[in-house]
């Protein structure tokens, strides 16, 4: 349709012009400006700002918490998706609807509620703190809110694939004497794997950039509970714009890397389906 369409359908130049204009103004120019700002630093200064001990511990914490949360979500997401697709139980529709809540709830609300639930006299903290599980103002709290924000991604990635799975394959496995576990391990799991991987990467990427909910529940102490976005904000509050830009460049690099990874996973899982 391409060549004919361009001759017949109107608006090619208008839509191309406006799309490129708006994209450049709102996204590309500001991003380039960030790299240029960081480039004002000499290499040594850049390293000092973007790769100091404090910055490295912030990156590591961000990465570590997002990874742990995404791994937990991988397991929980599979279990919940399995229940929602395969079993009937009371309040199923409601549970299904609740899974979407983390996607719509503003992050500030998440942070506020979680901080208040897990303090010593909070609803959940009163049971957990005596057990030595202190979530408020600790690393555990960061992981908890990241589990919350990333949770729907795995469930919603696995659910449709599980629902579309051919019953014949499972029947064949059962007929040939496979146990339920063997069927899961060798028939079902390989089919779900691409979806699980996609959900995992999405949850992880979301966790790496998360800011709103984390500032509430973490004590934001350098070297201990300070994630990379918090470091950027505190650099900005010191009016150290170039240093803030340097940290941002590292985070942007990581985002681009993840984005490439996500599109590779998507391409691979699409091929896998066919």
């Amino acid at each position, binding site marked *: *349709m*391409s060549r004919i*369409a361009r001759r017949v359908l*109107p608006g*090619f130049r208008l839509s*191309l012009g406006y*799309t490129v204009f708006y*994209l450049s103004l709102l*996204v590309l120019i*500001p*991003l380039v*400006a*960030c790299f240029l*700002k960081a480039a004002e630093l000499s290499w040594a200064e850049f390293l000092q700002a973007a790769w100091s001990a404090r910055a490295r511990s912030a990156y590591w914490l961000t990465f570590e918490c997002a990874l742990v949360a995404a791994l937990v979500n991988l397991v929980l997401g599979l279990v*919940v998706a399995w*229940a929602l697709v*395969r*079993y009937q139980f009371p309040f199923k529709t409601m*549970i299904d*609807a*609740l899974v979407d*809540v983390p*996607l*719509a*709830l*503003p992050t*500030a*609300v998440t942070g*506020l*509620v979680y901080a*208040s*639930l897990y303090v010593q006299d909070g609803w959940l903290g009163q049971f957990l703190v005596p057990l030595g599980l202190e979530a408020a103002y600790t690393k555990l709290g960061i992981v908890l809110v990241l589990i919350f924000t990333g*949770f*729907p*991604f795995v469930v*919603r990635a696995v659910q*449709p694939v599980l629902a579309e799975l051919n*019953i014949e394959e*499972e029947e064949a*496995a059962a007929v040939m004497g496979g146990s*339920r576990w063997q069927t899961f391990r060798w028939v079902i799991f390989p089919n779900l794997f691409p979806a699980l991987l996609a959900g995992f990467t*999405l*949850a992880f*990427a*979301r966790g*790496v*950039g998360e*800011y*709103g909910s984390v500032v*509430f529940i973490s004590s934001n102490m350098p070297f201990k509970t300070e994630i990379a*976005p918090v470091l*950027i904000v505190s650099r900005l509050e010191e*009016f150290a*714009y170039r240093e803030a830009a340097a940290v*941002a460049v590292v985070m942007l690099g990581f*985002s681009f890397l993840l*984005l490439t990874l*996500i*599109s590779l996973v998507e391409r691979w899982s*699409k091929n896998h389906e066919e």
Partner: protein
Amino acid sequence: MRNDSVAAGPVSPSALPVVVVPAYIKPPSPARNDPAWVRYTVISITYLVVGLLVAVPLAHVFHQAFSAGIGSYFQKLFGDKDTRHAIFLTLMVAPVSVAMNVIFGVLAAWLVSRFRFPGRALLVSLIDLPMSISPVVAGLVFMLVLGLQSPLGSWLRDHGWQIIFAPPGLVLATAFITFPLVARELIPLMEADGADEEMAALSLGANGWQMFWLVTVPNIRWGLLYGIIICNARAMGEFGAVHVVSGKISGQTDTLPLRVEKLFQEYDLPGAFAAASILTLLALLTLIAKAILERKVNQG
């Protein structure tokens, strides 16, 4: 159609995935009979996880907000001048940034779904880019370009335009965060529909404008509404990016989510929860509207 948008559409971290499990239930087969203990364990874990992770926090928001009685709740919400202003500011900023992204989304979807040109694939991935950038970094880039320390920012201020630490900055940062949300709803929809009806309209003598309003818009209306709802929910709840560009001046540049943080830091928990309850209510309304629309779109 909704189902492929998950598998085939460009997916990025903070988007709202759209999933509809087929309504028909597959014939039960003995091959799918999991042992009872597995069934019960899986269902119990599901209750526990969704309950602790989602239901308890939701209940907690409203319980805390109303803990001192309904009168005190409304007092906290509307009696406080700064909270009132924050509600007003959020209701101003979100629609403007949504409108910006709707205009962009419709034009970008038209471009990508109707024409093939060099650089198209690159353009599609650039449209998705803002979703994978941390909100704080998004706020920072605007600060660097338009802040008072930058040449452009100080030039603008000398001519009476303050962007950063003012509502225009909030709009820009919010528009950046929600940038692709309308476009990515429309692109798969318009690609699936194809251009046949539009070509027919043109060959019957419609001009471009008539074709757009009488053929294109009616065809995409539900998808467009869906995109607007999702975009609006994100815009109202945005925190990280506006946090950086707002300067957090009470009664001037505090949006509702920023107001929640400020009240929390001032140990005014009832006030913080009252403000949070409004945002939670908006989120729940969004989910209900989304569910209704999904049903509509699936019916065609």
